[in-house]
């Protein structure tokens, strides 16, 4: 992983949402630190997994790095372009290269548009091809590519099943010929037998077009399957980052260990025999995150230093990064 030019570079990204009270004279009464200093890189053709409980900021990272939410601070470079400071035509150009697939295939497609309008829209926006005929032709090819019958191109989203809609979302993301796609929980709304279909499709498309993915998910089994490296987020900060098998076989951070031990294994003997670390309580509010290490309130091995000092982000083993005072 020492390739000199990663496709995606994120440095100290922060996204804080103000909490206001009052209708006309809005007073700021608090700050949700949804993402509070996250840094990582993604190599060309790589899939980086991003996992954590709900509210850990994983979706906000994906949206902020594409400029869908204005970032509070930090730097995001995608294929040589600084996305957070880009304006106008530059921004448009970056958007062509970086796309997103959303979690809910019901909410992310306009119900009044035909599949044809949905899939050709990115081409119209980016002025790809000179005529509507060519764009529709390309949309038909994309439909076939994602495993949908091109003859259904004039139908509306409600005429498709959940899995098929997610395929439409994928076709739309591919329409502008991007190099990087943020996959924001693309399979969690789908049935088990359909999940494997969509994951296999994403993998095939990656092989075919050399796509780079940020794969945001809470299903740790699927992340192990599809990702090359995995980042673990907790309350807006990264606590561990490593190659997938290293992370799943030798997790260093107590949060990663607890998260992994909570994942059910579809094997009764193994599941019964295994020792679980069951975390007590819920994730604290990001409005007022705990001082020191943010995990110390739920950590089974918390020490005094964890309550006072933020642990340093460091490379504990080759390519294995962790932020924990207890890790030697």
């Amino acid at each position: 992983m020492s390739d000199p030019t990663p496709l995606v570079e994120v440095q100290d990204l922060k996204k804080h949402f103000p909490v206001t009270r009052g209708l006309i004279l809005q007073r700021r009464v608090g700050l949700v630190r949804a993402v509070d200093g996250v840094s990582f890189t993604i190599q060309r053709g790589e899939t980086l997994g991003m996992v954590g409980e709900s509210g850990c900021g994983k979706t906000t990272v994906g949206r902020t790095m594409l400029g869908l939410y204005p970032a509070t601070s930090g730097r995001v470079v995608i294929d040589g372009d600084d996305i957070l400071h880009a304006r106008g035509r530059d921004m448009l150009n970056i958007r062509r290269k970086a796309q997103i697939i959303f979690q809910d295939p019901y909410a992310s497609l306009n119900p009044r548009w035909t599949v044809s309008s949905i899939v050709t829209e990115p081409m119209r926006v980016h002025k790809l091809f000179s005529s509507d005929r060519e764009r529709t032709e390309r949309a038909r090819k994309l439909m076939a590519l994602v495993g949908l019958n091109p003859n259904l191109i004039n139908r509306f989203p409600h005429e498709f099943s959940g899995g098929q809609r997610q395929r439409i979302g994928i076709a739309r993301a591919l329409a502008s010929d991007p190099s990087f796609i943020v996959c924001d929980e693309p399979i969690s709304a789908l049935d088990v037998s359909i999940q494997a279909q969509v994951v296999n499709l994403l993998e095939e498309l990656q092989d075919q077009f050399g796509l780079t993915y940020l794969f945001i998910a809470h299903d740790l089994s699927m992340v192990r399957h599809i990702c090359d490296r995995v980042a673990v987020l907790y309350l807006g900060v990264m606590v561990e980052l490593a190659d997938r098998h290293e992370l799943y076989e030798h997790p260093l951070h107590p949060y990663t260990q607890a998260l992994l031990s909570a994942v059910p294994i579809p094997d009764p003997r193994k599941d019964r025999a295994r020792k679980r670390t069951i975390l007590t309580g819920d994730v604290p509010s990001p409005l007022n995150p705990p001082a020191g290490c943010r995990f110390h309130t739920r950590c089974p091995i918390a020490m005094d230093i964890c309550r006072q000092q933020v642990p340093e982000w460091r490379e504990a083993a080759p390519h294995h990064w962790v932020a924990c005072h207890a890790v030697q």
Partner: protein
Amino acid sequence: MVDSLLRVTDLKTRFHTPEGIVHAVNGISFHLNEGETVAVVGESGCGKSVSMLSLLRLIPTPPGEIYSGTAIYRNDDLLKKSEQEMEDVRGREISMIFQDPMTSLNPVLTIGRQLTESLRLHLGMTQEQAEQRAISLLEQVGIPDPSRRLGDFPHQFSGGMRQRVMIAMALSCAPSLLIADEPTTALDVTIQAQIVELVARLRESLHMAIIWITHDLGVVAGMADRVIVMYAGYIVEEADVDDLYDIPSHPYTLALLAALPRVDRRRDQRLKSIPGAPPNLLVEPHGCPFAPRCEFVIEQCLAENPPLMSVGKNHASACWVAVKTGLPR
């Protein structure tokens, strides 16, 4: 031989809709012993929730209609009881918890009010007795500072805590059977592990039977005694938990297990996906409902729907083909 608590025979439920008749449950039969935990596994629309709601007579009629079957619970047929008799069964004998605790709790009533209601109704407690019992119930399900939280409203609890409140409510009258309808699906894995552990602990102390409805073959592996797999309103396989995972005998079970990635294993090939989509339940079932997606399909499958047939001790599968050999049975 252990006592049978519930015996369901040939249960059929359908819905009359403007588009036609939806065949949701197409004749399922199963039994449940005292203190036993059975998992009902299947994808959305397979009839797993509808069949359990039918037992409790919670299907809105119309459009729903339970048009065949018996459900013998401790010598009485649940499907023949009057609405008034059913009210004594629900909550007291059989309790149910749902996937989304926010929609099953009343948002404008305090947790205390909702918890004490069934205690006063079913057990005839006074308000004071009921409150004492409510506090001890909340304590049992692991809610910190229970006496203060009695005055809180549902929105003041987190998702995991709300599910605990639901469980406390379901257990308030010490039922003999708890039906859990995907109680952990909306929760994070860490919270899911907490809830599964809680239910397993309560099961031991209260000696109750559990029907755990889920789409996740992983969640139930560690806690179920037996597993029932449903597809398109039919039971397609039923087995003791170890046998189901060791020697799955229906092509659908086999395919579901192969489609699951494993957190504890390296796997570098593609996942095995199941082609196609679950069938349209508006169409009258003809032949085996899984046949269009099945890799073992033979001619007989298209003509005749296989009944559940014994393939081993406590193990039944509805398939004309022996999946080990790929040959007709």
